[in-house]
């Protein structure tokens, strides 16, 4: 039989079943680890089904592997799944990160493994669900649901006594805007009587969602703000550094970026093309500022986790900058960069986790001179750094280049200035990463490395790192493999040029005001 | 004819009694007295019922009053039992001292 129509459902169900299975198994020995590893690997292999059976020639805007059955008659809610170039690679990404997460947690999580792996798998369920669901209700379901496992993971396995605060902070930051998002969704439903995304997109294209432009504008903001907080975009990132510095490695790997960015691309741009164009100049600015801001703050951190947090902020700001340039290049680059940045970030956090396993600290002042003791470690760190600072031939560069050149081509106010500012990020990123490398690995031995007995990467950690390294190279050299599908999506979004693009100066002011209120 | 009284007056009388009932509920400290003031409120309502029954020539109003009486009796039984219980645990009938649970 043809698996294509059920594959997405299967992808959601496998980790769920895995979680239930783990709940039933006894928590003894390495059973939990092996179980989780098996489940995640199976999921990953299943996700690989998508790129191999994806119809790259399909008309853009069509969803593949689709499932569409009524779920609830009234309100009209459907169980509608499907992927396109935008979401396909994100699903695969989610698939591959999971087993790596299990591998790095192997030894790091030694107590209450059961709780950990159950919620870890639930987290994966939620994320895959977000990426594949095309019904606003279903999507919102997964979107909200994804908060719970993450919160509990942070609260339970956080690093310091601050964990509970961090967890609640994370949850509140994500939940309250989402509540407003729900209002937006419901309003849309009241206007159109459907939750179905493709349908809504058609309506939006026909300008027939609602005559009330002010309400529509507020609605679009309710969407955008909720997503922007989750990304997070520059001034809304209050939760990020706490959450990242508390959360266990496996959780951090999937904490920021993906979900919010995907949602912006899929829903904000899909349902509110005009409004998105209207707000774009502001977002462009926020993106550029965020890049520099994150990089500068990363530059002055002493704690590796916090440094990585601000690095993440800077990285996602790149993507925001790209997608809101509304140029093919920017959008393609942005989408591509979501994938590559997640991989790089994952590598970063995994390495930090491994380092923490060795020395039990993230404080750079206690580290130093490790390079001579852990050669493989430093090699991996340098490779990751190069990918993060966007060295050509590694994954980071393709995205960055496309994004920034997209910014240069965009039509919005002051785009040149913002592009210049954004590009200066490449200097700063190099600065903080290299400085970190130097402080951690070069120079004289720090306090910890001197006193703590440590060991270089073991087989398991090699197993976890090498796939990423290879992916870095592959994505850096053979980007078309990924861009082929992504380009279709990016081109479509860029093509939704709205008739009502006002003169740019007005647009910025307008969006600024509306943001203010 | 002078002998007639507007129904409204009965209603106002009811309102007066009702409000006095509310007021004494607010003012009295002794639980029993408070309970008594509730009875007063019920009586006010009864008066209103009767007045309306008279105005509409509807017996159901009076029936209602009848039921109110029954209910009042039942409430009295239970209420006084509760009061006894509280007196057992607290040795007081002053409501101002019955505020274990607050905030």
């Amino acid at each position, binding site marked *: 039989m043809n698996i294509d129509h059920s594959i997405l459902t299967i992808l959601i169900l496998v980790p769920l079943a895995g979680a239930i299975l783990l709940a039933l198994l006894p928590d003894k020995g390495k059973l939990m680890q092996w179980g989780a590893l098996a489940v995640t690997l199976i999921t990953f292999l299943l996700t690989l089904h998508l790129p191999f059976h994806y119809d790259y020639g399909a008309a853009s805007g069509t969803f593949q592997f689709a499932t569409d059955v009524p779920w609830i008659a009234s309100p009209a809610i459907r169980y509608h799944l499907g992927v396109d170039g935008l979401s396909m690679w994100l699903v695969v990404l989610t698939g591959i990160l999971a087993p790596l997460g299990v591998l790095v947690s192997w030894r790091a999580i030694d107590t209450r493994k059961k709780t950990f792996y159950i919620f870890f798998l639930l987290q994966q369920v939620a994320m895959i669900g977000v990426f594949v669901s095309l019904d606003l209700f279903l999507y919102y379901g997964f979107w909200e649901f994804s908060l719970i496992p993450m919160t509990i993971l942070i609260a339970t396995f956080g690093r310091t006594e601050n964990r509970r605060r961090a967890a609640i902070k994370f949850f509140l930051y994500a939940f309250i805007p989402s509540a407003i998002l729900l209002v937006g969704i419901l309003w849309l439903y009241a206007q159109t009587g459907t939750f179905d995304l493709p349908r809504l997109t058609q309506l939006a294209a026909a300008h027939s969602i609602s005559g009330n432009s002010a309400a529509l504008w507020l609605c679009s903001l309710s969407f955008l703000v909720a997503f922007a907080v989750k990304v997070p975009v520059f001034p809304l990132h209050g939760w990020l550094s706490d959450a990242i510095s508390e959360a266990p490695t496996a959780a951090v790997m999937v904490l920021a970026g993906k979900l919010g960015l995907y949602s912006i691309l899929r829903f904000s741009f899909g349902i509110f093309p005009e409004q998105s164009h209207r707000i774009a100049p502001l977002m462009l600015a926020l993106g550029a500022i965020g890049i520099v801001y994150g990089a500068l703050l990363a530059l002055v951190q002493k704690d590796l986790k916090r440094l990585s947090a601000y690095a993440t902020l800077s990285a996602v700001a790149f993507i925001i900058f790209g997608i809101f340039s509304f140029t093919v290049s920017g959008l393609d680059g942005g989408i591509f960069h979501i994938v590559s940045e997640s991989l790089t970030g994952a590598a970063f956090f995994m390495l930090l986790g491994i380092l923490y396993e060795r020395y039990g600290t993230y404080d750079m002042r206690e580290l130093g001179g490790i390079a001579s003791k852990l050669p493989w470690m430093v090699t991996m760190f340098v490779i990751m750094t190069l990918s993060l600072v966007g060295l050509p031939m590694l994954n980071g560069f393709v995205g960055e280049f496309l994004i920034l050149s997209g910014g240069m081509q965009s039509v919005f106010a002051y785009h040149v200035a913002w592009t210049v500012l954004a590009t200066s990020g490449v200097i700063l990123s190099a600065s903080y990463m290299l400085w970190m490398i130097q402080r951690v690995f070069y120079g004289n031995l720090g306090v910890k490395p001197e006193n703590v007995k440590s060991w270089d990467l073991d087989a398991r950690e090699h197993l976890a790192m090498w796939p990423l390294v290879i992916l870095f190279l592959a994505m850096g050299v053979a980007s078309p493999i990924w861009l082929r599908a992504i380009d279709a999506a990016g081109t479509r979004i860029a093509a939704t040029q709205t008739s009502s693009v006002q003169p740019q100066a007005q647009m910025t002011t307008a969006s600024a005001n509306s943001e203010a209120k | 004819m002078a*002998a*007639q*009284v*507007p*129904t*409204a*007056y*009965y*209603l106002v*009388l009811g*309102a*007066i*009694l*009702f*409000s*006095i*009932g*509310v*007021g*004494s509920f*607010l*003012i*009295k*400290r*002794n639980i*029993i*007295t408070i309970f*008594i*003031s509730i009875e*007063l409120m019920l*009586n006010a309502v*009864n008066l209103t019922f*009767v007045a309306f*029954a*008279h*105005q509409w*020539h*509807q017996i*159901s109003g*009076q*029936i209602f*009053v*009848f039921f109110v*009486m*029954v209910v*009042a*009796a*039942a*409430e009295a*039984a*239970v209420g*006084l*039992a*509760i*009061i*006894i219980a509280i007196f057992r645990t607290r040795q007081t*009938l002053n*409501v*101002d*001292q019955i505020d274990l649970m607050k905030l």
Partner: protein
Amino acid sequence: MQLALFIIFGALAVAGALNLLLQRHPINSALSLVVVMMSLAVLYWSLGAEFLAAAQVIVYSGAIMVLFVFVIMLLNAGEEERTKGSRAAYIVGIPGAAAIFCLLSFVFLSEQKALGVANLGGHLDNGLNNIAEISQVLFTKQLLPFEVTSILILVAILGAVVLARKEEQ
């Protein structure tokens, strides 16, 4: 006649109510409530509710109030001391009560015309006397509530038993 009855017993009722309010000792309050009930009984009668008037005297002031007095005696509740337990009661409560009164009487008086007048022994729909009428309705139209009341009583009894009996252990 009607007017006289209304004025006298209305005044009496109000006086009783106020006395209830002002008396410090619960027993006095209880007795002043009896006064109110009695005068109300008269008013009922004047409004053509003979049965209710009787029931008021027998059931209410007879049974219920006796129960009250009994409990007061049982717990020998003395003078209530003027504790300052609650400012809210005075600050928000009394104005609230006053407002309620004003609103009610405002509405009643403003709609006085529509409400019409009451006269002595107000005749009811059919010639039957009041008691017969009540009983008829009670056992046909309002049978269900009447029956259900038994459950109510049952519950009350249960409650009294449960609550009043001492905990044995």
